């Protein structure tokens, strides 16, 4: 703490003086020895000055408020980390503004240099404050309560009583008894006590509530712990996404991830070996006619989990209930339909047979998908299709889905022929088709009817290319189409070694905060002065930090001690006491 500077330059000290009621930083630094030698400001002096500025309470406060302000843009402008599509959309909507914002890191606010600068400075400031305070508190913890002030009546919270001794009572012995009682009483109440006798009076000096500053220091140290856990944990953390269609298996290797974001220290070749098979995906829909009709819920991915070298087991992934497996957590992020499509060439040979995940576009699961047939046809084929679980034809001839479950599943497809653009190794999304260099063969644009299929139906491809079949996956004997199309789930697999540490430090921070804000730090004195045949008993309290209940506490001490003293004095000989009331 910059006690020495704060003497001549008040703004730099975090201490607020001995009279202040400082909630987080009790003013016990006032006890620290002040070195008043003023160094000439050389390079070192300026460094020191800078450090003191940085670790001053005022700077910390300004940094805190800056942090609050700096966090706001990230909630207004879409962030790459939270909403990458939003950023793409923003670029499309504001082509002129977006690059400028990007230069200001406004799409990555929370990793931007300016945001980082604020919180790093804040944490340096915090550490620079916490370390000296820890030293100081360590000393305070081992020191005795201070000498009883000569004039207790100068304190705001002061009570005094005159106790008359019984005839023949020894004033000095009674005073000794009174102070011993007070000491015992305060010690039992959690005070640290010290006797200070002399100048014709006996007194006990007591202090309690060291936990307040301990809590304060623990809170701030725990925040540093949270930051370190996030930083270090992030290096060992990975998240990956994968899509599993019913009946298929995901193996925890890089091959089976559709996207993967590893931390700096993650060894991608050594992921924990396990496999997940999607046996079934179940979902409930609110029936038509009820409130919230079509609303989906109770999503469950029923999995078979296979850890290398162990028995296969059943597992479930639900929303809010990820599956824990080998230190990884598996989350259910989305679901949809994966129609099974078979394409045959003109000779009837199968050139393509896959279940293709179609991405849902609305609440009624109108889904968009792309089929790419690179080989086996005279030209490469690309098909763009919509899947409607419950199709209804609009007056325009277009379809829409009116319910998310499989009531009247319908698939519509438009065919493109030409170059898919995948032969040169350019990475292409499997969910989009780039029609550049391809000729559209069906669809409204070319005046040829799109292909429309129900499960089990087959249609001819245009130009006598062959046929396409929408396979009916219903189990044998089923009477409706409710199981005619396979479903898929998109899973997100995470390993976060930092999270438990973050939680532990956050919990510690709360405990520290509770102590720092609610444990009162106070000093209490009881002083007994024999005066002829009476004892003058004084009680006084001094708040060290915010302490709204100090007056009550002094009253309580006085009341309890008065009763105990009366009882003690009556025992050997009867004594009468009279209260003088508060001064």
């Amino acid at each position, binding site marked *: 703490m910059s006690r020495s500077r704060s003497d001549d330059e*008040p*703004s730099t000290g*975090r201490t*607020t*003086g001995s009279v*202040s009621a*400082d*909630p*987080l*930083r009790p003013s016990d630094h006032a006890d620290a020895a002040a070195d008043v030698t003023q160094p000439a400001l050389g390079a070192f002096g300026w460094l020191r000055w800078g450090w003191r500025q940085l670790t001053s*309470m*005022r700077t*910390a*406060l300004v940094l*805190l*408020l800056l*942090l*609050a302000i700096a*966090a*706001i843009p*990230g*909630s*207004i402008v*879409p*962030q790459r*980390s*939270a909403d990458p599509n*939003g950023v793409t959309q923003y670029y499309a909507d504001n082509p002129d503004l977006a690059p400028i914002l990007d230069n200001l890191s406004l799409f990555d*606010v*929370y990793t931007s240099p300016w945001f980082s600068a604020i919180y790093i400075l804040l944490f340096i400031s915090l550490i620079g404050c916490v370390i000296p305070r820890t030293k100081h508190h360590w000393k305070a913890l081992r020191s005795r309560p201070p000498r009883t002030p000569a004039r207790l009546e100068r304190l705001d919270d002061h009570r005094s009583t005159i106790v008359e001794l019984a005839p023949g009572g020894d004033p000095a012995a009674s005073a000794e008894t009174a102070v011993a009682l007070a000491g015992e009483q305060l010690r039992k109440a959690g005070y640290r006590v010290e006797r200070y006798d002399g100048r014709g009076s006996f007194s006990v000096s007591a202090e309690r509530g060291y936990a307040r500053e301990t809590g304060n220091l623990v809170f701030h140290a725990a925040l540093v712990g949270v930051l370190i856990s*996030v930083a270090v944990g992030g290096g060992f953390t990975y*998240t990956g996404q994968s899509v599993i269609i019913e009946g298929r298996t995901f193996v925890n290797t890089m091959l089976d991830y559709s996207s993967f974001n590893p931390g700096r220290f993650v060894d991608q070749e050594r992921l924990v070996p396990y496999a997940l098979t999607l046996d079934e995906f179940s979902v409930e829909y*609110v029936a038509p006619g009820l*409130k*919230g009709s079509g*609303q*989906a*819920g*109770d*999503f469950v991915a029923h999995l078979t989990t296979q850890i290398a070298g162990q028995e296969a087991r059943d597992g479930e992934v*639900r*929303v*809010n*209930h*990820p599956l824990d497996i080998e230190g990884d*957590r598996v989350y259910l*992020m989305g679901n949809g339909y994966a129609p099974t499509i078979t394409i045959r060439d003109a000779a009837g040979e199968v050139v393509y047979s896959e279940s293709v995940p179609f991405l849902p576009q609305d609440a009624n699961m109108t889904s968009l998908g792309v089929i790419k047939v690179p080989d086996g046809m005279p030209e490469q084929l690309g098909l763009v299709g919509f899947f409607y679980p419950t199709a209804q034809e609009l007056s325009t001839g277009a379809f829409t889905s009116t319910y998310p479950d499989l009531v009247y599943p319908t698939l519509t497809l438009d065919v493109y022929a030409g170059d898919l653009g995948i032969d040169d190794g350019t990475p292409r999304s499997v969910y989009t088709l780039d029609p550049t260099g391809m000729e559209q063969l069906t669809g409204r644009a070319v005046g040829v009817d799109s292909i429309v299929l129900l499960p089990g139906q087959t249609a001819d491809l245009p130009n006598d290319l062959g046929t396409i079949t929408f396979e009916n996956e219903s189990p044998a004997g089923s009477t409706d189409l409710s199981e005619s199309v396979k479903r898929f789930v998109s899973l997100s697999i*995470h390993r*976060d070694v930092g*999270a438990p540490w*973050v*939680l532990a430090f*956050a*919990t510690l921070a*709360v405990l520290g*905060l509770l102590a720092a*804000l*609610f444990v009162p730090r106070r000093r209490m004195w009881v002083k007994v002065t024999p005066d002829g045949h009476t004892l003058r008993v004084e009680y006084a309290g001094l708040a060290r930090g*915010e302490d*709204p209940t100090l007056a009550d506490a002094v009253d309580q001490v006085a009341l309890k001690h008065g009763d105990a003293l009366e009882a003690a004095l009556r025992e050997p000989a009867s004594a009468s006491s009279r209260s003088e009331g508060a001064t």
Partner: protein
Amino acid sequence: MAAMPATETLSLDSVSVLLVWTAIAIYSLAFIAYAIDLARRSALAVEAKDAATRERELVGVGAASAGASASSSARETIGAVRAQEAAAKAALEATPAQRPRMVWARIGTSLTVLGFLFHLAGDVTRGIAAGRVPWSNMYEFALTGTLLIVAVYLVTLFKYDLRFLGVLITGLTVLLLGGATLAFYVEIVPLADPLKSIWLVIHVFVASLATALFALAFGLSVLQLMQARREAKVAAAEASDAPVKTGPGFLRTLPSADALESLAYRFAIIGFIFWTFTLIAGSIWANDAWGRYWGFDTKEVWTFVIWVLYAGYIHARATRGWRGARSAWLSIIGFVAVIFNFTIVNMFFKGLHVYSGLS
């Protein structure tokens, strides 16, 4: 609210809406009673001052120094203000039985209690009708949040005579509850999957509780600023010997700016603890629901901003030059951010907390 429901469970919901509107009407009456109370406080304060002046003048005449006495008693002195404030502080901390009899404040409080009972009944019936905790969309959150604001206010009345905050509390409740019922009302639909969690019960409830405490701290901080302004004016007037208007008269029956600040601080720190807990509980829930405990979702950002603002407020109270008015402004800004987070962020900001139920 407009569509008359047909089935039995839904008619329970319409009963709930009816109860809520009744509560709003009663709160409005309570608001009027509290407003009259404040006006009467001004009058009482003026009467008390006049009485004191008369007495002094009489004494002054007796001592044959009427002229001097009259000129000095025409204005308030800072000493007199301090004495008033000390008396007001004692009244603030008096037990309910010892409090001065203020008829309109009593009517206001009785009406608030009555309104609260209807409000509680409306909230509970909504919960029963929905078969879950009644804080799962914006309407229900407003319903429960305002209920907690009133509850915290009423509970506090046992310890502190904060009836001078009644106008603010009932006014705020009528505005938020009425506005929410008009603008945010949605019929009961089944809970979306991500909300089926014990954390819905804990996280959202604690957040509402923190909001209620911040609301009280906000009210006290506003009064603190008004009182500090009045104190400064009185002191300035005394120094310059010129008469001056010192703001609303009811301030004369309130404790000092310092006492109001200390009280505001106590509410704010309890609110801050709850808010910290909200943040942590939210992170635990997010880790289960979204696969990460923190992702700078818009709502997370604002919850963090509010946390930092109140952390700043607590630090400001310990920083030279920031205690008093500046820290009070932080408390006010903090609460404005809370309301902003609830309304604007929920309605207009894109994010994962899309549970307003509005389309």
